[in-house]
């Protein structure tokens, strides 16, 4: 089936989310939609999936104009969507999830479970999906859950599959598996729309790349196009993908974490005996697939989760059981993973958010009296310094773009006196331009002689920033590596393969990583 979008325009108030977008996907092709957050990719796909009605333009299937009033129409026309966040019932089996809403019934009126199971097995076999129809979804790893979503679409006889940021939650190995499946689907004659903001992936999988910027199509390129060209198209100007940085000149250990254990209420150890040091003037990057304890590690370091055992010291001061406020005062600058949830009060102004953790200290307060003039002056200065694009310092921070919100947090945290910068997923969801800005600021901190700890699920980010890489898997550090380590090796460590510790010899006083097998050397 040939799918064509013609002149699709979608407005939200005065904002034009999609401006006369044209796109055609041939059968047996992978068509990538590349664009920054807010470029209009998701809006376009929601139009295609019947969740939104276009203001102008039409959707053509095999040359015939169709209108989708709801996802039901889209599904009936053979369009399937795999959302970024899975729509699965965890306590149901794969087969039950797949048939939910279209349950086959026997003449007696009872569910025909056997039919579904056969169907799942058959599809699984045909496209190499390897999914057991009787497994409970909650027991499956994320990568397999995604395949269940794909099967869901296939069972509904989808010929066009939309994959919305499918790799965001996958390990490098899982991503490879996904690509293999996508290729098999393609050979089976399915059309794939692959939405992403990751250049490398798009280059690897797409037959055609359409780049979106600010709601319009700015170009269509073959997969052979260079990364730089694609990035420039996406952003609209030349960007520097690599942060230029000098080799690190590490000093003394500033942050010392020893045998940290963090458990939840059920006693499950999310962080299980993690030890590392971050030295002044170096960036330690913690790599790992999401959900392997990195979030809990950061929260425990900030005092947001109780430390079950182990010790945390900052510049010789024991902070193991300190409150978040004590840690902030002791010199921890913190960029939380989820900036809207943990970093900002959305309804507060930019100015108030810039003093969110120093509002009660001079010059912003005297006694219990706030000093609005000082808060406003601080905001004016920082907005300038960090190039925050906001209508005014009084505007609610929730009205800013993700990149500018992150700049507000950076301005606040770096504006305080601090010894260590703790940044969790510092560029998640940001556009290329903002990523460049954030990375530059982080390297700047290192060059000033501060200790920096970066936690990121993006390997590119780890490579770009880290002077030393620690890999986390299931609450443990599976190894320390220099930034020259090949991605395959990191991938193995991220999947839990016990690696040999090959930290750069001499300069690497690797603290006893609990699970790392003592080196057999290389």
């Amino acid at each position, binding site marked *: 089936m040939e799918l064509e979008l013609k002149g699709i325009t979608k407005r939200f108030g005065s904002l034009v989310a999609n401006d006369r977008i044209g796109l055609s996907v041939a059968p047996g092709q992978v068509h990538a939609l590349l664009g920054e957050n807010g470029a209009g990719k998701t809006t376009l796909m929601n139009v295609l999936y019947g969740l939104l009605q276009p203001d102008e333009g039409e959707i053509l299937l095999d040359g015939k104009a169709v209108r989708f009033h709801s996802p039901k129409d889209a599904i009936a026309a053979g369009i399937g969507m795999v959302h970024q966040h899975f729509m699965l019932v965890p306590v149901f089996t794969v087969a039950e999830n797949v048939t939910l809403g279209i349950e086959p019934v026997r003449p007696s009126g009872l569910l025909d479970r056997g039919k579904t199971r056969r169907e799942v097995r058959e599809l699984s076999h045909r496209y190499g999906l390897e999914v057991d129809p009787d497994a409970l979804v909650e027991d499956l790893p994320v990568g397999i859950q995604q395949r269940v979503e794909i099967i869901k679409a296939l069972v509904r006889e989808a010929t066009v599959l939309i994959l919305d940021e499918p790799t965001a939650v996958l390990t490098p190995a899982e991503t490879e598996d996904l690509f293999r499946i996508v290729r098999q689907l393609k050979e089976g004659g399915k059309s794939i729309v692959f939405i992403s903001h990751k250049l490398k992936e798009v280059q690897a999988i797409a037959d055609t790349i359409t780049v979106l910027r600010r709601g319009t199509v700015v170009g269509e390129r073959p997969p052979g196009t260079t990364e730089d060209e694609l990035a420039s198209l996406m952003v609209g100007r030349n960007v520097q993908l690599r942060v230029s940085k000098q080799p690190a000149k590490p000093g003394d250990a500033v942050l010392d974490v020893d045998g940290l254990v963090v458990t939840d209420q059920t006693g499950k150890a999310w962080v299980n005996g993690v030890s590392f040091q971050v030295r002044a003037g170096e960036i330690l990057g913690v790599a790992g697939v999401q959900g392997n304890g990195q979030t809990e590690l950061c929260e425990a370091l*900030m005092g*947001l989760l109780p430390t079950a055992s182990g010790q945390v010291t900052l510049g010789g001061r024991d902070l193991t059981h300190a*409150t*978040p*406020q004590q*840690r*902030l*005062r002791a010199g921890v600058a*913190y960029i*939380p993973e989820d900036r809207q*949830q*943990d*970093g*900002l*009060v*959305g*309804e*507060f102004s930019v100015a*108030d958010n810039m003093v*969110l*953790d120093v*509002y*009660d200290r001079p010059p912003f*307060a005297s006694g*219990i*009296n*706030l000093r*609005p003039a000082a808060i406003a002056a601080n905001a004016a200065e920082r907005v300038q310094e960090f190039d925050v694009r906001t209508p005014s310092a009084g505007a609610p921070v929730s009205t800013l773009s993700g990149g500018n919100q992150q700049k507000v947090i950076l301005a606040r945290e770096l504006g305080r006196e601090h010894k260590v910068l703790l940044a969790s997923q510092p560029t998640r969801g940001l556009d290329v331009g903002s990523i460049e800005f954030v990375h530059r600021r982080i390297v700047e901190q290192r060059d000033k002689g501060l200790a920096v700890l970066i936690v990121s699920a993006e390997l590119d980010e780890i490579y770009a920033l880290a002077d030393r890489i620690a890999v986390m898997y299931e609450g443990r550090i599976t190894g320390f590596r220099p930034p020259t380590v090949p991605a395959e090796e990191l991938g193995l460590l991220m999947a839990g393969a016990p690696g040999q510790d090959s930290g750069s010899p001499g300069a690497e006083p690797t603290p006893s990583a609990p699970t790392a097998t003592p080196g057999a050397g290389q």
Partner: protein
Amino acid sequence: MSDQAASPGPATSPGPATAGAKEEERGPDGSFGRALRDAILEGNTVTVTILAIFTAFVVGGLLNAFTNRTVLHAWASLFSAPGHAIATAWDTAVGAYVEMFEGSVFNPHTVAALFQQASFSTAVHDGYLSAVFSPLSETAVQATPLILAGLAVALPYQAGLFNIGAQSQLIGGMIVATFLGYGVSMPFFVHVVVCVIGGFAGGAALGWLVGELKARTGAHEVIVTIMLNYIMAYFLTYLLSFGYLMQAPATSNQITSPIAGNAHLPLLFGSHLRINAGFLIALACAAGVWWLLNRTTIGFEFRSIGKNPSAARVAGMNVERNWVLVMLIAGGLAGLSGATVIQGTDFTLNFQSYGTYGIDAITVALLGLGRPFGVVLAGLLFGALHAGAPLMQAATGTPVDMVEVLQAVIVLFVAAPPLIRTMYRLRAARAGGVGGVMSKGWNA
């Protein structure tokens, strides 16, 4: 339509230079008229609230007209005298509101009487001047406890807590204020102050209990406060049931002895008007709450925690300690509310002195959009309804329960912004609405 909207801008502007500058300020498509129209048409919370009140009065009027016996008789002869039926309905509905207005704001008859007096000084002496201001005085008296109790709901709301327990805290304040009022003997001014502070403390203790339970055990404040309302109501009955506790000697009624004259809140404008210092306390508390919320580090913490507790925690704020503090202050405000009732108008405490203040407080806070000055306005509106109701009943036979109906209908409309927006064809403003505002308390 767009032509009309665009043309007045350049046409009425004084000169091209200033017009250009102004035009820039308002953005590309804005004449002043258009901006004003947008402000009115956009269904923001203030517009919706005002329209909700208006709609409630219309609905109340219809309800009144169609439950009135005279009107129903007139409708019976609708086809022989249609004009009569409609006129009667109109007269009944409007008549009730006119009386309510005269009872709560301003009564022209009293002014006429004032000017018939021989001299101004005798008029003042005989109370004719006071009569002119009597409706306003009554409104202020009725509004005083509503404002204070409304603040007791609005303040914790700003910190993300839903205080249903204004009633229990108010009873706590009443008990302490009354006991200090009749149980001890002190000079005039000191006694007033001691009783008022006692009232605050009595309420604050109950508020503190709620905050402490939530902070330590996670007990939801809604459940705890609802239960405390029952506990305090029955505790009050218990106190008033035994002579050796707080029951007045030599009576079988559940009532205390009257408080000492020294503990009465001073009247503001002489003995003819009931308005007393309690009203000033209420206004001062509203201003104080505004200051606390907007100008202090404590308020900054309250608001941060109310809007986003996890970000507040990350920023180093102690969320639990703030819960305790905000409930303590809120309880104190509700306790003050109780003290002003005892020391300002009632002077004794009986088993139902708390009336419906605690529940009305939620309505007042809701209608006041959870903001201190909104609470003052909402308190004055409800105070006026209560003040005007007796005259309305006396003059038109409309039952005072009409006030309860009006209150309920106002809340109904305020809680359903989409309904009001649809009725008046307003555009939806940015998220929210008051209904969303209050229900958020449940998720805290």
